């Protein structure tokens, strides 16, 4: 595309025709503050913070205003600073400013802007406030509209990226409020609990329901044996909460911090990710050989599961019956591990740290309590763990690297890539191919299913059969893929679907990054690289070679798919509707 030259703050800047002023300014390293803007997702010029002066005084929202030849733009005049400050003051006038006790204090985008733009009087325009009551109806999160600034990022990600649209702006003018239809609580809607709305919220209006106090109380109870499992994606992002750059692997320090928090054993969900592969690969081979329902679709992502139940109830038979790695871990912890340790299931408190908010919903589902008590008692997000570490006064960056405990802390390279889109598929292929051919793969890499694209397809030779696979992440992409399957346009044997775009590394429970970072950085790719690097560096990269898994089958479960394995490691699904009244 041809370039256009404009003047920004007196400098000549050349940018492709069709660029917005904001994009052209970025090319020239001129930063314009933004608040509601999220690239390709929420480009609605609602907040007016990015306003600039063009052609001698006219005001325009730079996030959507296209550049024209000869245009003169000023981005930081006294008039603009005053305008932005007043805009912030108007937002503050209808905002609950209990910042000291707010969950987002310290990483709130509104707070940051007020500081940067020098808002000195926060109650200048105070008057009426739009009435609101916090919505606590969902299992995984709270919506508190008193902290909402109506930027609509949450409704944009929910509707446009996930294709769900259970929250959006209702009413009009000063009464405008983000909510669900007919003021239903989120828990009464077809919300799938993915938490992507929380991940993009600039303020404290959306946050997960915290389990920190319950977990701390369990640790303090000496009669309880408190164990923790950490999902692969957590180590790829937790460091961001402590000042590390995006894409830093903090596995060793995370383990050290968990030990110092007082957990009796620090285990790894990678262990049960390997176990998932054993069961899932077995189930897949069984379905292929015995005429089972195909395509088989992975079942690790509870946001995806709930989506499938609501939006594709006729395809729940396609879902693998395998529990997610989180739940498999809990079921094994309260059976095999409990027996090994001479503990009763009820003496164990099983805690998880997940990059996910839907995991909080998953622990309360039916058929997720194989040993008479919940497989997992508390599921925390990566953000909650960071908060817990800070509350305990642990200096995270100074911690040494430590190793997970055995035996439930042992995982392979196949398991660690579960946290990135395509990872489960690749891990399953590694095991399925070797199981069926009996030969060792020369290089256990299936590169076609890697990468952050929303939908990926490949065909692999598995034994004497060509297996068509597809991978989708983000529920909008999942819908597109499944519609292709239903129309007969595509024919797959095995599909991996993750609820969040990019997979778990970009989950709704991961550290929140400001809009600026979302707009200028490929967060998913940086975090995923951590996992693929860790996989490449592992000596054991296939689930079926995990010695702890081998021992588990030899001494306890028998074979994959055995009756005992079914009782502990498999689950059932329900059929729901989109609109239930």
């Amino acid at each position, binding site marked *: 595309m041809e370039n256009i030259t404009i003047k920004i703050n007196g400098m000549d800047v050349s940018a492709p025709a069709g660029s917005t002023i904001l994009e052209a300014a970025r090319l020239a390293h001129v930063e314009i503050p933004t608040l509601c803007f999220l690239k390709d997702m929420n480009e609605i010029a609602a907040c007016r913070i990015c306003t600039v002066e063009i052609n001698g005084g006219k005001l325009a929202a730079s996030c959507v205003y296209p550049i024209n030849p000869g245009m003169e733009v000023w981005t930081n005049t006294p008039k603009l600073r005053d305008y932005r400050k007043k805009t912030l003051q108007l937002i503050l006038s209808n905002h609950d400013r209990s910042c000291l006790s707010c969950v987002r204090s310290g990483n709130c985008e509104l707070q940051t802007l007020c500081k940067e733009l020098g808002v000195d009087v926060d109650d200048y325009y105070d008057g009426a406030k739009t009435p609101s009551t916090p919505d606590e109806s969902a299992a995984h999160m709270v919506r508190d509209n008193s902290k909402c600034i109506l930027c609509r990022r949450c409704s944009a990600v929910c509707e446009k990226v996930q294709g769900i649209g259970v929250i*959006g702006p*209702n009413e*009009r003018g000063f009464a405008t409020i983000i909510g669900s*239809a007919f003021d*239903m*609580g989120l828990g009464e809607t077809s919300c799938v609990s993915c938490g992507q709305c929380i991940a993009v919220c600039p303020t404290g209006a959306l946050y997960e329901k915290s389990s920190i106090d319950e977990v701390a109380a369990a640790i303090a109870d000496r009669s309880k044996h408190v164990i923790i499992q950490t999902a692969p994606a957590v180590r790829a992002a937790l460091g961001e909460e402590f000042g590390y750059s995006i894409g830093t692997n903090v596995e060793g320090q995370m383990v050290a911090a968990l030990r110092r928090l007082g957990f009796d054993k620090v285990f790894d969900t990678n262990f049960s990710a390997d176990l998932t592969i054993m069961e899932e690969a077995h189930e897949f081979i069984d379905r292929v050989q015995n005429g089972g329902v195909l395509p088989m679709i992975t079942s690790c992502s509870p946001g995806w599961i709930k989506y499938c139940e609501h939006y594709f109830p006729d395809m729940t038979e396609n879902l693998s019956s395998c529990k997610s790695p989180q739940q498999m871990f809990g079921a094994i912890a309260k059976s095999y591990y409990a027996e090994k340790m001479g503990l009763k299931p009820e003496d164990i408190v099983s805690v998880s740290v997940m990059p996910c908010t839907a995991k909080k919903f998953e622990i309360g589902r039916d058929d997720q309590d194989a040993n008479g008590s919940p497989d997992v008692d508390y599921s925390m997000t990566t953000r909650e763990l960071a908060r817990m570490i800070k509350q305990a006064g642990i200096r995270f960056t100074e911690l040494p690297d430590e190793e997970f405990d055995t035996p439930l802390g042992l995982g392979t390279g196949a398991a660690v890539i579960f946290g990135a889109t395509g990872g489960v598929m690749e891990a399953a292929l590694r095991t399925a191919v070797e199981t069926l051919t009996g030969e060792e793969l020369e290089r256990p890499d299936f590169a076609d299913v890697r990468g952050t694209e929303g939908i990926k397809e490949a065909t692999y030779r598995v034994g004497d059969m060509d297996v068509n696979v597809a991978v989708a992440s983000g529920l909008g992409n999942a819908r597109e893929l499944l519609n292709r399957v239903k129309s007969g346009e595509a024919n797959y044997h095995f599909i991996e679907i993750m609820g969040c775009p990019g997979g778990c590394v970009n989950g709704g429970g991961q550290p929140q990054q400001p809009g600026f970072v979302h707009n200028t950085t490929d967060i998913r790719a940086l975090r995923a690289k951590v996992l693929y690097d860790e996989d490449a560096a592992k000596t054991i990269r296939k689930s079926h070679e995990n010695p702890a898994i081998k021992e588990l089958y030899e001494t306890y479960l028998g074979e994959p798919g055995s009756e005992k394995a079914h009782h502990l490691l498999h689950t059932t699904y329900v059929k729901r509707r989109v609109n239930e009244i």
Partner: protein
Amino acid sequence: MACKTQGVQFNGTKEQEAALKEAIALLKDTKGSLMPIMQKAQEIYGYLPIEVQTMISDETGIPLEKIYGVATFYAQFALQPKGKYQISVCLGTACYVKGSGDIFHKLEEILGITNGECTPDGKFSLDSCRCVGACGLAPVMMVNGDVYGRLTTNDIHDILAKYE
């Protein structure tokens, strides 16, 4: 949270449902068809309760919340049916300075409903409006076609009694 689904019982008929479905089938593949569909639905049912909005959502695949967002943005859409007796109170400038706000609150108090709502027995609905062209009689309210002017809050009981 309170769900705005209580109130008057929904009494949609099979004929109404068929008419709505026919209208949706005709319109739904056109871009920007949500508003015309909602207008048609209101024409058929007189208002847009959750049952009707859900039908629109199920038939079009448009999220219920999006439909509700549009329904609550535009004054032309009603979530509650109109009563047998439709009360409108003028809150235009002349009536307002003469105390029509108090009249309105009195009606809310007596009927137990607020702006845009209908009593559960379907008898009275209450709306505010802007200027009925009778400023000389301010403050003014209307019940169906009947105009009542120079009102005080003490008049309300007797007026409502006429429609019992």
